[in-house]
């Protein structure tokens, strides 16, 4: 079981990375044990994800609660597992086997930062202070901030070139959207 101070230290580490401080990685536990503990972040961000799911699916009237929880729950687990699994094959192929755990630990804990960004977007949406077009722009800016953050994590943690990191972020982005699209189709 993970201790509270470990969660806080890890979140502080990824916050430092968000501020473009490469020493943020030193705050993370990059052991095998730390690798598994980083998946605990899925539990940490679960309440915010729950709010996001509730808002996103509020327009669906013919979908039952059990179906919603089942489909979103499966999608959530798949989202958390797929990218580390894909990277387990990509990292050795690109000669970054040694940095794999470091990257996944940083990537997993970074979810704590990007859900905070989405929480801000959700807050703006719920408050109604910004219109539809403005909200779309804020959403786009949030997406760019998150993608550039993932790019930085890939560059620092995996020690790859800027282009290589961009390719990985693009792959992760497409994969996440494919999983999300399948989940949304299951709702219909």
């Amino acid at each position: 079981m993970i201790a509270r101070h470990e969660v806080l230290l890890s979140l502080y580490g990824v916050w430092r990375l968000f501020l473009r401080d490469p020493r943020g990685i030193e705050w993370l536990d990059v052991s095998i044990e730390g690798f598994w503990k980083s998946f605990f972040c899925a539990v940490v961000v679960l309440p915010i994800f729950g709010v996001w799911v509730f808002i996103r699916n509020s327009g669906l009237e013919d979908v039952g609660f059990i179906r919603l929880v089942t489909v979103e729950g499966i999608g959530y687990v798949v989202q958390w597992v797929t990218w580390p699994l894909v990277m387990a094959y990509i990292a050795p192929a690109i000669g970054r086997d040694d940095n794999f755990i470091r990257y996944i630990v940083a990537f997993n804990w970074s979810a704590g930062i990007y859900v905070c960004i989405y929480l801000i977007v959700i807050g703006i949406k719920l408050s109604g202070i910004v219109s539809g077009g403005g909200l779309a722009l804020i959403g786009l800016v949030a997406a760019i901030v998150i993608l550039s953050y993932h790019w930085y994590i890939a560059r620092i943690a995996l020690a790859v070139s800027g282009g290589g990191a961009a390719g990985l972020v693009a792959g992760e982005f497409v994969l996440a959207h494919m999983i999300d699209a399948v989940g949304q189709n299951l709702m219909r």
Partner: protein
Amino acid sequence: MVTLLKNILLTAIALAVLVIVEHWLGITAAFIGVGVCFLAYVLLITWRQMRDETDEN
């Protein structure tokens, strides 16, 4: 490490398939599907064990 992640992913995919079957064909078909898959799984394990025992002999 990879094996565990793979098993979790396969379980999640199997659950997603079950949700699709339930949505298209109903809860009865989903229960039958679970039963058939469980039976197939037991048979697979039995067959593997028998094969390993034959190899040892």
